[in-house]
């Protein structure tokens, strides 16, 4: 008797599952849109972003969507783009590729967004591009937040556009800087032993820099007690006087903290990923003051540089539309992406389609007004955004100040091209910071 009941319930639950899936589909079909282009109407443009809003990778990054939204709100309050107001649907993927795919699917299939914007993380972006089949669907993935050089491959990722310079570019520019400033000194390198590090090693090789002491670490191991002390001992034993730290923020925290404890004070060069003072501060493991004197790399103006017209405008926007959120490099990053997005939407014209947007970035992208201090590399053959870095020194509050008081920008590519001192002069900001 008992057995029969179990089986009956099993049958019932299976039937319910099939039924519920079929029923659940009805409303979605009933409301299928009949517009010319998905996510665009005469009065609106809907964009979507999936980033870690919660979880281990969220500190710092979770400020990006709010910053984008603030800038879009500012543009909307001033009439929008070609009369269309921009909205941004925000999803939380917790830095898990499985969730990133699920969220991208929701954004594209349920929320019916026009384009994805600023999705974050190499693994997540790879998973989204291949599982959701962005290329086949023709959905643009604008200004992805990863420095993996692979996304510049237009044949593989035809609808993906980068904004960050690649890790390889960064390593090449670091190499140049090391050769010019620390010739003859013993060099050390701490790097993440995965594709992040592989990209960097390739860059250092091209840059012609050989390290006397190399310390690879496995992603995730930087948090394990005693691990980072081992790095420092290895560097000390090898007598490294200049140490490049090409890792994530938690690795920077671990390295600087242990170096202080072991009274080891080399000249630190912090990569752009790991030199994030906000993230280091929010971890509350070591004081940000330990970053003082370290060299840092950035492609956007420093958040503290109020003399910069873009920073000033972004700060005003942040005060009005993003109330109570502290202004930092993540806000600058988010607003920069939003600003370039508005430029692209503007350039695509009144008859906005996904294709016209991508065409506009390819043909006019390199001439966009942009807060970045390096030229944008967009062309019909390249989807690379910023192409270089300026070098500065961190102060005791963790803010990066350009060496010599002015931004000296170096540009390069992800291949064998040389590192050159950029003569790029950023165009003046459009009136009120509104692209026209």
């Amino acid at each position: 008797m008992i057995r029969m009941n179990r089986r009956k319930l099993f049958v019932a639950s299976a039937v319910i599952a099939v039924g519920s899936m079929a029923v659940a589909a009805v409303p979605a079909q009933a409301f299928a849109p009949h517009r010319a282009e998905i996510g665009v109407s005469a009065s609106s443009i809907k964009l979507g972003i999936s980033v870690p809003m919660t979880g281990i990778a969220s500190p710092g990054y979770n400020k990006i969507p709010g910053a984008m939204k603030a800038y879009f709100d500012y543009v909307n309050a001033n009439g929008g783009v070609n009369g269309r107001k921009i909205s941004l649907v925000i999803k939380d993927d917790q830095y898990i590729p499985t969730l990133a795919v699920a969220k991208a699917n929701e954004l594209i299939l349920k929320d019916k967004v026009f384009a994805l914007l600023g999705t974050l993380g190499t693994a997540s972006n790879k998973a989204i591009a291949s599982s959701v089949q962005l290329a086949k669907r023709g959905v643009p993935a604008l200004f992805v937040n990863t420095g993996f050089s692979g996304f510049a491959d237009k044949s593989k990722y035809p609808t993906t556009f980068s904004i960050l310079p690649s890790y390889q570019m960064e390593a090449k520019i670091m190499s140049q800087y090391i050769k010019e400033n620390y010739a003859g000194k013993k060099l050390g390198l701490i790097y993440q032993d995965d594709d992040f590090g592989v990209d960097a090693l390739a860059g250092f090789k091209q840059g012609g820099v050989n390290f006397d002491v190399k310390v690879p670490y496995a992603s995730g191991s930087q948090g394990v007690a005693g691990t980072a002390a081992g790095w420092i001992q290895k560097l000390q034993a090898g007598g490294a006087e200049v140490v490049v730290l090409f890792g994530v923020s938690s690795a920077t925290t671990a390295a600087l903290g242990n170096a202080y404890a072991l009274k080891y004070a080399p000249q630190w060069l912090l990569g752009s990923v790991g030199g994030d003072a906000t993230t280091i501060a929010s971890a509350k493991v070591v004081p940000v003051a330990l970053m003082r004197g370290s060299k840092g790399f950035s492609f956007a103006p420093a958040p503290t540089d109020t003399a910069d017209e873009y920073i000033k405008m972004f700060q005003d926007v942040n005060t009005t539309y993003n109330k109570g959120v502290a202004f930092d490099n993540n806000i600058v990053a988010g607003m920069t992406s939003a600003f370039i997005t508005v430029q692209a939407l503007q350039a695509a014209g009144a008859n906005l389609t996904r294709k016209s947007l991508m065409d506009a970035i390819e043909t006019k992208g390199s001439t966009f007004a942009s807060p970045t201090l390096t030229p944008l590399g967009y062309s019909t053959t390249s989807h690379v955004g910023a192409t270089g870095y300026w070098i500065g020194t961190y102060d005791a509050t963790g803010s990066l100040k350009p060496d010599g008081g002015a931004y000296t920008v170096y540009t390069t590519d992800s291949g064998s091209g040389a590192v050159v001192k950029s003569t790029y002069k950023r165009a003046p900001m459009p009136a009120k910071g509104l692209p026209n």
Partner: protein
Amino acid sequence: MHKILHTNLGRALFFTALGFGLFLASNRIDELRVYQGATLAMFVVAISSLILLTGYSGQVSLGHGAIMAIGAYAAALARIHWGLPVWLCFSAAVVVAAFAGAVLGTAAARLSGPYLAGTTLALAVGLPSIANQFHVLGGEQGLLFDIGQPPSWLGADFTSYKWYFWIGSSACLITLWWLQNILRSRYGRTWRAVRGNEVAAQLCGIHAGKSKTLAFSVSSGLAGLAGALLAMTISTVSPSAFPLSLSFTLLTGAVLSGITTLPGVIIGAVTLVATPEIADAISQRMANSESVTTNLPGLLVSALLILVVLFVPNGPVEQMRMFRVKARSHTKN
């Protein structure tokens, strides 16, 4: 209906009919639901493997996410290096994960309670990050697992998500059918005997260690299959796709399903897939604030978990059965 299910042929026929129903459904629902259906199928396989282990064999595993990773990597490597056909990739996932499970199970059979939980937890934390150590495993950004386009005879409108859904639900139906059979076999009875009372089972001539190891191995094989299904739906395998939270999610699904009742497995899987959607709908209607949207799914699942543990500790299906048995005995008296 349930009489038919008493025979092997009957069960096979029933699952075939169910498969046909799913096939009809897949043509009528929109793409997002098809994708969610594929995820649902993955969760059903994963949760049923956990139910088999915990509910029927009495061993706890907090590390099933890691075993899923083993299966997923096995499938991806088989695809990349040998270009095996899809069904062989999935078979490879089952075999490799089952083998890993046998090795682990040998150790696990000696442990119980919190010690077993701790060991498997360590596995969930440590194992996926091994991928960062070996270049062949693709590091943090992972490997592509491209099962290719659906066969052309299915038509040009046949999307890859529909293809995933078909593969996923076939795998899921075969798994459930097979599990129904094995749990009713000698092995199933042995597992339950050991779970119920190990000493009594041993007195009956059952080798408790072997029985536990076998259960662990079978469960791992199914988890491996689930891992390969997960990799298929996201087209990639990477360490971050198998976080600690995945293992806990599966356990939550198993508890919601009723840890000792396989028929409830669909309840758990549906809950896991539907909760974020429900949370989304609620937050849009209520506040439309980001912090509500991002935190509500976790809150809902946790609240549901607490309610289930408090009021229906054996799971809703088992509880309903108990009610009926009670009601019947009342009427008899």
